[in-house]
């Protein structure tokens, strides 16, 4: 399913998480000893077991593998770097505290997404709506603009800010569904597990999320297929 979505959304619109996941997968922790090298080669279940045996360096490896996806998930919910950074730390801390409850029925990434969605939804329920919390365009960091003119950059940033604000106004489950599906390539089944829902409900939420997004943005002027 993800591959078909990838087919649909190619080129410059390819979801960032998809590109970045492979980048982080290639990134190995800064190995300085044979022990750390051995940890870096372990699969995730073995890393979890090592953590439970008291090896906190095994958790460092898990953090290194998943920090980008967790940060991006948090950023999608809160729309600014500071909160996303704090929430990412919170997600990993909660995961660490709950390691014993990880049964391995799902992947570590799905489990982290579940924790992340809960942490983020709790945060946005307690804080200012995203519409007013989104980072100003000028504060966005390290976007590669070398190939774009200043006008193009400005237009693209304005458009991105509009879309983020619109996503921030979606109801919680619709927002979570859209973020997990569009930006993290999760299948409907995985999203259903994360949200404690059914595949049918996930598809319905996604359908309504896209419809609401269209209404919030007005007439969408994206290129037609």
């Amino acid at each position: 399913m993800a591959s078909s979505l990838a087919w649909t959304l190619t080129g410059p619109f390819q979801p960032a998480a998809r590109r970045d996941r492979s980048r982080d997968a290639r990134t190995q922790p800064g190995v300085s000893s044979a022990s750390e090298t051995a940890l870096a080669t372990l699969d995730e279940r073995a890393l979890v077991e090592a953590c439970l045996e008291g090896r906190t360096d095994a958790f460092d490896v898990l953090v290194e593998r998943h920090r980008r996806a967790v940060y991006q998930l948090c950023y999608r919910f809160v729309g600014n770097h500071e909160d996303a950074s704090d929430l990412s730390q919170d997600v990993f801390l909660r995961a660490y505290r709950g390691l014993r409850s990880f049964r391995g029925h799902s992947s570590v990434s799905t489990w982290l997404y579940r924790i992340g969605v809960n942490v983020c939804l709790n945060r946005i329920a307690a804080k200012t709506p995203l519409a007013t919390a989104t980072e100003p365009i000028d504060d966005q960091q390290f976007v590669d603009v070398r190939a774009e003119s200043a006008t193009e950059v400005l237009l693209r940033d304005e458009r991105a800010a509009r879309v983020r604000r619109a996503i921030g106004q979606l109801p919680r489950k619709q927002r979570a569904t859209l973020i997990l599906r569009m930006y993290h390539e999760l299948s409907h089944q995985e999203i259903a597990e994360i949200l404690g829902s059914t595949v049918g409900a996930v598809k319905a939420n996604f359908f309504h999320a896209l419809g609401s997004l269209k209404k919030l943005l007005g007439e969408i002027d994206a290129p037609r297929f």
Partner: protein
Amino acid sequence: MHLGSDELIDLAERTRPESDAPHLRTCARCRAQVEELRRAMTTAASVDVPEPSPLFWQHLSARVHDAIAAEGTPNQTARGWLIGWRMWTAGASALIACIAAVVLTSRVPSEPAPPASHLAESIVPPDALPDDDPALNLVADLASTLTYEEASELETSTHAGSVDEAVGGLSAAERQELHRLLNDALRHPGD
């Protein structure tokens, strides 16, 4: 009959070929919906997360590392919780048993009450209890360094019915003293 939201999503994501939905060929409304969904997906997908500083990732890892270093291992955390839970359970069951015993003995006298003078004779004053018994002192010394887990391994922890057994093993004088202490505690709950 128009297509449902799950069918429209499958078609928009191309996980279901349009040839599987003959309705689409004849219904302009459903075709338009599929196109709108695709446009909305393209618009949403065009928004990237700004890439933070390259140093940020190491900084995040270091923050998490420091935070979990302060937490202890997950095993320790879970064991502490488990021990706490078991101690609370044991304590709560002992308290409930004691209160039940007090209520039953004060409301349902099984025998006629003995004369007051006879009762007074049967009560052993607290200061007459053997507080310098070397066997008790030895037990107290050992118990003072015993952890809850060690005690559990020695099967000295409470279990269902253990309070009844303990009370049943008391002498008459010890029961009277327990009764007096419990009544004192109930009369002065804030002490």
